[in-house]
């Protein structure tokens, strides 16, 4: 078995780690050399202008896209070895809510609970996101914000520690945003890790911003030098 080299100073491996991560899209390098160590209790906001690769990065972290170079480590072990544990311990909410419009909010949540083996009260979770009374309304009758709230209700049901949220505040009203911030705060206090993208300014003190512009390939000057030498 090959052991992963961990710097000796680090006794406890970080919950999640990106090593020298690089992604490209349509032959354009989005970011490269991205190194991040994420600890429990941290809130990471991925920042950057539109098209900087925020969603791409989150999809790579969540394990949806395999289209990257570099290494991902969960609890100090490569993701390929800990795939299942990571899947159980992480929760991804993307641009698309992942809610079936033909079904009711409760039916949607029950499917997710069975898929992920979580136990909890779906009705209570829906009430927590302000959908009390809509439990049995087909989702096609709900507004965009309410659809997103159905997806957000999953946060109340799951025991996953790593939350990966892509623009979670989209289409949510002010009160909902405040509630979600409160929930994130509670999750962080309970030893969770939250990675999110948002154009909203967050007020939580645990916030750490990672700007993808810092990893843009202007730093390819080294490669250019190589080209000059070998070319």
């Amino acid at each position, binding site marked *: 078995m090959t052991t992963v080299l961990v710097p000796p100073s680090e006794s406890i491996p970080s919950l999640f780690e990106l090593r020298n991560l690089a992604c490209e899209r349509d032959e354009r390098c989005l970011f490269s050399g991205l190194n991040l160590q994420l600890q429990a209790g941290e809130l990471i906001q991925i920042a950057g202008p539109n098209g900087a690769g925020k969603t791409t990065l989150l999809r790579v972290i*969540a*394990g949806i*896209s395999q289209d990257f170079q570099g290494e991902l480590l969960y609890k100090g072990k490569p993701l390929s070895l800990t795939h299942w544990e990571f899947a*159980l311990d992480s929760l991804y909410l*993307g641009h698309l*809510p992942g809610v079936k419009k033909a079904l009711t909010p409760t039916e949607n949540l029950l499917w997710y609970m069975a898929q*992920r*083996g*979580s136990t909890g009260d779906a009705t209570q979770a829906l009430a927590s996101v302000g959908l009390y009374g809509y439990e049995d309304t087909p989702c096609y009758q709900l507004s965009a914000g309410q659809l997103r709230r159905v997806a957000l209700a999953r946060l109340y049901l799951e*025991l996953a520690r790593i939350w990966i949220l892509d623009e979670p505040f989209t289409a949510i009203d002010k009160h909902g945003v405040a509630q979600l911030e409160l929930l994130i705060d509670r999750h962080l206090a309970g030893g969770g890790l939250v990675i999110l993208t948002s154009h909203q300014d967050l007020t939580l003190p645990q916030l750490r911003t990672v700007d993808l512009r810092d990893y843009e390939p202007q730093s390819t000057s080294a490669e250019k030098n190589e080209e000059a030498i070998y070319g």
Partner: protein
Amino acid sequence: MASISSRQATEFSLFTGFIASVKRDLLVAARHKSELANPLVFFLIAITLIPLGVSPEKSVLTLLAPGILWVMALLATLLSLDGLFRADYEDGSLEQMLISPQSLYFTVMAKVLVHWLVSGLPVAILAPLLGLMLSLPASGYWALFLSLLLGTASMSLIGAVGAALTVSLRKGGLLLSLIVMPLYIPVLIFGASAVGSAVQGSVIGMQLAVLGAFLALAIVLAPIAAMGALRIGANG
């Protein structure tokens, strides 16, 4: 309130996940009634038109019936394939399936099973009835039902690979047919041959055995191929 200690005690089970997926897809299918009826109505209309378009002569129809019934059943299956993963792709459920701790193999199997339950199975049940319309001799009824039962299941599985490959294309219908059609040909040949043999009074054990073998092979391999295709589709 769920505490951290219950993390280990989560009720994670492959079986509950599979059942939940089957239940959910059946519910979705039941709420899209027009899509549900689509392959069946196509099958019904196409078969009804044959005596009108070709010839109402009994001897001609008897000769054509096994092949026509099988070809139409195949096309009816093909018609309903396009939406197999498309809806999940568009509403984001597919991403969630890919990163779910559940085995993707069983999630794909659940989707295929539901597809077969709402398209293949009704077609197989309806076929003998329409055989009557094409004056298929009574000796062919059981062969038609059994061969379609096995054949449509294989076709749903093979079709899932094509549907998975074309999931990220906006208009994948034509490509899907081109990918899947050649793979359907062996199933069609043995299926139609089973009905033809039964009509002539010979035994059909061989054809049914070959159809069964196709199905066994498809159950093992098709979901794996579909899984790979879905992962590639999600990368793009």
